[in-house]
């Protein structure tokens, strides 16, 4: 498994954990309030810091397991896979953001718009790493 594929697994796992943490917290807050909770800056900051810290730890660990490949630059196959995954991710982000905007036009709930847009960003990133793993496993 190449460094880039391992990196995709690490980032996928980190982003999934982050998304679960974020939406679990928002769901609990919303349940307590009886309506969709507003975006809370400390929660967003905590999410971003957790993602950064966990991804650094993950990459250090995979670099330690095979130091010779840790500084692996992207070759032609990596670039093709990154390009396809990025394209897929862009489609997911677009669908998510448009869904959020559509929802806003229906009920003018800015909190809902924020969470859907933020969620779309998470899903797009998860989709990007899932697509990378798919292409590394199944071929290009």
């Amino acid at each position: 498994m190449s460094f880039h594929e391992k990196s995709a697994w690490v980032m996928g796992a980190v982003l999934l954990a982050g998304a679960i943490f974020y939406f679990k917290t928002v769901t609990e807050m919303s349940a307590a309030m009886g309506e969709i909770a507003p975006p809370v800056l400390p929660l967003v900051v905590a999410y971003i810091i957790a993602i950064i810290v966990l991804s650094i730890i993950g990459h250090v660990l995979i670099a330690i397991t095979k130091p010779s490949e840790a500084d692996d630059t992207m070759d032609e196959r990596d670039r093709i896979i990154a390009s396809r995954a990025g394209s897929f991710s862009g489609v997911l982000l677009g669908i998510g953001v448009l869904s959020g905007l559509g929802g806003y036009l229906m009920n003018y709930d800015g909190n809902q718009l924020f969470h859907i847009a933020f969620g779309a960003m998470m899903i797009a990133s998860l989709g990007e790493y899932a697509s990378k793993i798919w292409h590394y496993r199944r071929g290009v």
Partner: protein
Amino acid sequence: MAKRPPITNRVKELREAHGQMSQAALGEAIGVTRQTVIAIEQGRYSPSLESAFRISRLFGVGLEDVFGWAEDAG
């Protein structure tokens, strides 16, 4: 996902005939990672034309001596 082209190759055979060259050494010689060489040998990746030429020149054979088109697959 697009259907993979029916491209075959003799990279593994030529590499082994070339003094048991390692996948890492071949990768380094043509500018790709060892994992990409593995993917090429397993038919999971068709290299760029540039890499295909680099491989054939490295082994001192023609392009069609390394890569082929599976006739029965169309």
